[in-house]
Structures are given as C-alpha cells and as structure tokens.
C-alpha cells in the first residue's frame, strides 16, 4: 500500500481492527445498491428480488456455521449482535424465571462487558467473572465449579481481540449446559480463521461481524439456536422473526455471506499464510526487540495475531512512531484523545499497570508479505531502541 499524499510505503498490520473489503465481495455487493435496490420486506417484485438475495445469503451463512437458515439473525455488526444475545437472553431468562446470574470473563470485548455491567447496574442481574491465567486462558474445569444453578447465561469470547488467545469454548459450553444455562460466544475475531461449526462448539448464541473477514462494515450476524427465546433489543418491524426491527441491509448481507464463503473456501491457504507471517513476526520481535514479551497463549492463539508488551514503553508513543514510519499497528490502551488507560485484559492476566500501558498488537492479513514483516521488525527494533535511549536520557 502507498500513502496517497507522500507516496510512502504503508504496511497495515491492524487486521483485528478491520480488513479491507475483498474486491470479489465488492463486486458481489454492487448490484444490490442499484439494480436490486428493493426492500426485502416489500411484497412486490423488487422486494422479492432483495428478499431472495438475503435468504440466499442466510443459507450460505447457515451452511458455513452448520446450522439452519432460520437460526441466523442479521444485525449491524458485532456490538449489536453481542447486545442482542446478552440482553435478549438475560431478559427472556428472567421472564421465564430461569435465574438472574450472568457469567463472563474479564477479557471480553466491551460490547459484552458493558452490556453485562448495564444489566447488573440497571436491571438487577448478578454477574460472576471467571478468572483467567497468565496466558489469558479460562480454565473450563474451574469455570464449571464456579457456575451456579441460578446462571442464566455464560458468555466467553472465542478468541480474544487483544491477546489472540483461543478459549476452550466447547468445554465451557458443555459446563454451561450442565447447569441449564445458555452459552454465548463472541466469535468476531475467530470468524474467517477458526472452526465456526456451532454444533461442534456447542454454542447457543454466536456473534460475527463481516468487516473482520474482508467483508463490508456495518453488518454482522447472530446465530440463535432454534427454540431459544430472545427478547428483542431493537424494537420495530417484524423483520428477522421479530427479533430485530429494521430494513435489512441487502448489499451488506450479500457481502458478508460472500466474504465468509471465500474465507472458508480458502481457509487452508489463508491460515497457513497467516501463521507463517505471524510466526516470522513473533520470532523477529522476540529476538530483535529488547524488553519485548509475548502476551497471550504461545500456541493457542489466532493465526493472524501477535501481541506484546514492551518493557518501559507506552503504547501510544510507539504507535505514533510506527505510524510516521508507515506502519499501522494498535495498542490496547491506545486512544486518539491522549487519554490512555491500562488494558483491563492485561491487568486481569496479572500484568502490572505499568506494563498494561505498553501493549503492542500486530495482526497480519492475507496479503501481508514476508518482506513487509522484515521491514516492520527492523523498524520496531530501531524505534524501541531510540525510545529506550530517549527515556534513559530523560
């Protein structure tokens, strides 16, 4: 990639934040902005054409998730899917008298954590946080012993966005089911890289978001196992079996299905390529950058995901230096308003607050090259050395 103004080389290593939309996906979407513009809920021909496109997409997703089409609810993205899953299941459980305890982890995405917090503070639910170890792993055995009979819903992230650790989702789902609780997983980072078979995972509710797997922004889906009552979170028309009011985003839905289809059709090559680049990156950083520590599980991690803390450096400063060198990276505590907070995920893993400000996340994509990684490792090594020198001087 090139910067349009300076024509300097840009290396984008923030694919966990978002990915570019695959041109094949864009192509699939285009007719649904103009030629097939109908409202999928309309009774006329234009509406039926849109409806068919949406239902084809639903079927594609259902095949990929190994579920029934009617178990897919289209949403505006990961945050909405998480809100709908947790609020919807929690409120329904209360209506049915199935308990008022929500079990989750301290390393969830804010879309989950803040939803649970709101249910606790505003709606009288109770919450249990499952502990994580130094790799950010939830122990399924320990989780089972913590879950009580009043548990309505267990929500554990499939693969963490900050540290890339893959959680033992199917074991956790089994533990939840033993207590009669529902199990939700936020699979936003996992989708496109890990097994999404909801039967194998044992998930009752599963969240995905298209723009994380080379689909468009502003569209996502929630898998809702048949028979689960879900109190709607967004009131409105009777779209999506009354679970989510609002005109369907036909081009977005078509794009999401196309993107996920491509991801799983090309899964083996993509994963092999991501792993190779990620491992090259981790090896390079660990051997070349003084004070770098890998965060998250060394083996059980997303193929695309490398994350570190660098001793004595704050993430914001590092990101600024990398940006000026054409490298797009991210930090858990990074904040464009200059108000960094230590990462809650790293704190929960037992890292001291000082280190929890110094995180660096580099997430590779399907088009990242060996040469890109070489440049990035070299640049980070030089930048960190320079910042260490500067700090020692101060």
């Amino acid at each position, binding site marked *: 990639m090139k910067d349009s*103004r300076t024509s300097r080389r840009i290396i984008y290593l923030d694919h966990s934040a978002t990915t570019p939309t695959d041109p094949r996906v864009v192509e699939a979407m285009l007719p649904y902005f103009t030629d097939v513009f109908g409202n999928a809920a309309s009774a006329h021909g234009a509406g039926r054409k849109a409806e068919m496109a949406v239902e084809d997409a639903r079927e594609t997703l259902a095949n990929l998730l190994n579920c029934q089409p009617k178990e897919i609810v289209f949403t505006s993205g990961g945050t909405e899917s998480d809100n709908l899953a947790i609020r919807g299941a929690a409120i329904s459980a209360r209506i049915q008298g199935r308990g008022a305890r929500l079990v989750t982890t301290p390393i969830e995405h804010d879309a989950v954590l803040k939803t649970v917090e709101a249910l606790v503070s505003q709606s009288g639910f109770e919450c249990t946080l499952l502990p994580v170890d130094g790799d950010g792993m939830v122990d399924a055995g320990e989780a089972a012993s913590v879950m009580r009979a009043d548990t309505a819903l267990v929500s554990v992230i499939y693969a963490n966005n900050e540290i890339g650790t893959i959680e033992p989702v199917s074991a956790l789902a089994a533990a939840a089911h033993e207590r009669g609780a529902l199990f939700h997983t936020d699979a936003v980072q996992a989708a496109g890289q890990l097994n999404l078979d909801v039967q194998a995972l044992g998930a009752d509710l599963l969240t995905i978001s298209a723009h994380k797997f080379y689909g468009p922004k502003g569209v996502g889906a929630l898998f809702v196992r048949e028979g689960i009552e879900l109190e709607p979170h967004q009131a409105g028309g009777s779209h999506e079996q009354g679970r989510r009011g609002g005109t369907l985003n036909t081009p977005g839905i078509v794009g999401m299905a196309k993107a996920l289809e491509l991801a799983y059709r090309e899964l083996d090559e993509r994963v092999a390529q991501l792993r190779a680049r990620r491992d090259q990156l981790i090896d390079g950083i660990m051997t070349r950058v003084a004070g770098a520590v890998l965060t998250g599980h060394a083996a059980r991690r997303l193929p695309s995901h490398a994350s570190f803390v660098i001793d004595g450096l*704050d993430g*914001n*400063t590092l990101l*600024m*230096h990398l*940006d*000026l060198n054409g490298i797009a990276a991210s930090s858990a505590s990074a904040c*464009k*308003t*200059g*108000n*960094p907070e230590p990462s809650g995920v790293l704190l929960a893993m037992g890292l001291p607050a000082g280190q929890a400000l110094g995180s660096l996340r580099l997430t590779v994509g399907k088009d990242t090259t060996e040469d890109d990684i070489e440049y990035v490792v070299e640049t980070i090594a030089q930048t960190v050395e*320079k*910042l260490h020198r*500067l700090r020692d001087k*101060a």
Partner: protein
Amino acid sequence: MSNKDIRVVVAMSGGVDSSVAAALLVEQGYDVVGMMMRLWSEPTMTGGAHNRCCTPDQMSDARRIADRLGIPFYVLDTKETFRSTVVQYFIDQHRDGVTPNPCLECNRQIRFEFLLNNALALEAQYLATGHYARVSRAENGQFQLRKGLDEHKDQSYVLSVLGQPQLSHALFPVGEYAKPEVRQLAERFGLPTASKKDSQDLCFLGDGDYRRFLSQYAPEVMTEGPIVRRNGEVIGQHQGLSNYTIGQRKGLGVQAAEPLYVIGMNPQVNALVVGTSDELGRSELTARRVNWISGVTPVEPFYAEVKIRYKAKPMRALIEPLGDDRFHAAFDEPLRDITPGQGAVIYNGDLCLGGGIIERQV
C-alpha cells in the same frame, strides 16, 4: 537538504494561530506533523475533566485542520507530567506566598521540554508553535528571541525561559505577521478564523475559580490571618493570602484615613501587609531562576527595558547580574505592582535577552 526532508512538529490547538503556523509550514514544503498535548485538568463533579487547552472540541478542530492540510496528527498524553510540574508549581508558589505565572513554567517544562523531546524523538528538526515571536541569528551564530512583529500580540514574555538548545529547534511562523494578516492567511488557506482566548487564564481549573481550587488543593494558603501595616500594627483580618495581589485596593475590608493597598505578604506569619499609595511604589526588584537567552551571563551592569507582567509596559532599568542565577533591576521610575512570582523579562528594543522570576521588590 530541501524542506521536504525536514520534519517539523507543530503544536496545534485548533485555534487560528497554530493552524496558520501549520499551513505556512506545509506551504513551505516541510514534512509537517501536528500534535496536541492532553493536559491535566482538575476532576469535576461530572467526571469529564477537560483542560481548557485541549477540550474535545479543540481536539476535533485540530484533527480536521490537520486532515485538511494533509498532515498526520497525534495527541500526546501529558496529564501526569503537566500535573507534577505546572500544576504543582502553581500550588507550591502560592504556598510560598507569591503569585506564579504557570505559562512560563509550561513553556519551560512542557512545550519546550516534554513536547520538544517527543518531537526530536520523531526525528523532527523543529518544534513550531503559534506564538507571536521571532527567532533570529546573531552574527556569531547565536540564536536570538525577538518580539513578534505585531507588538500588541507579542508573546516573547512567556518564551523568555528558552535557551540556545530550545531556540535552535524553535519555529514561530506567525511571529512574522500582524494578527489581521494571520486572519487573512487563515481565510486564504480555508481554515477557521476564530481566535482562541489568550492562554493567560489557568487552563487546568475545573471552573476557572483559582481561589476555590487553592482552598481544595492548598487550604493553608486560604487560611485567615492578620492584615498589618509596615510597623506591625494589626488593623484587620484577611481571608487567606492567595486572595490578594500586590497593588490591590478593593476588598480589603479595613478602615483607614487614606486608601490602603496591598504592598506585600509575609507567608511565614501569614500576614498581609498594607500601606498607603506612597508606600506602594517600588523601584527595585531581584529575580531568581534567571535565564540568559544567549547562554552567557553579562559581566557588567547594563541598561535595558524590563516587563514585570505579560501585559506590562517595558520600563527602563539598570540590570545587575548577581551570579549566574539571579539579577537585580533598578527602575528609573517606581512601579506600583512588582509582584513576586511573576516573570521579569529583559528587552533591548525588540530583542528579548532573558528573564527571571521576581523574588522580591525592594
């Protein structure tokens, strides 16, 4: 080396002056990077504390301007550094019974230390700000600080703390223009022309009320004590020394045959000293923490003009260096408001020679 190979970090506030500074540098072809510092502000009851130098509105203004100019823009977390230097200094100086000018301290420790170091770390050659001041080179190669061309807007007073290392990396692009010209430039560049309020107010106060701030953070300086005449006679009670400034007449709450003014403070015994108009005028001061911009302390006493406040008129005085860190100034005419804690800044015409912090009036 052409300008495109020279990186310049511009301290952006979202206001017209720093925006025009950035635009001028972009026009001159420099590799420009915009930056804003997130400074500490007193937490408020509602939680969201925003220093008045970096509110969310100013941040989004600066971000938009940077985007229009096609330059990167970053916000640096400076909260703790600012709190432990400038805000602490403000509190400590009040504890010492003097009236500080935090802007001097901010330029010394924040803009031209913290921010400059960050700029240099980004391989920038220069740090530019929207100050109305100019930098020139003497024949011997020394860097000189001059008043901005627009005498009314001149801000060299708050930059008098800079030395050769800082000035060698400083650019003040709008110092070459008058304010109306800067507005015209803003229009030409298609930038917002609204002016930020002058940075003389205390940006870190939640509500702008420094008395309330001090009663919370340094309650001892807001403790009642005696109002005395110079002979020691107690004639009333004050509400805490930090409520008063030298030369103040109103609000003393004392009865006397002729008008009385604050002529001094004695923090050791928490006494406010008042006297008549005749007792108010002082023609000498000493200053400490002196910075000679040339880096060389003058050997002989010399005549120059001295500004005793940001907005004061420069007044002729005989300057006598006292070691490397202090000087004595004897004014031709007595001044009514020489205030310990404020800067005494020395000029020779439009050339700023340096300055110090007023220690006491004599």
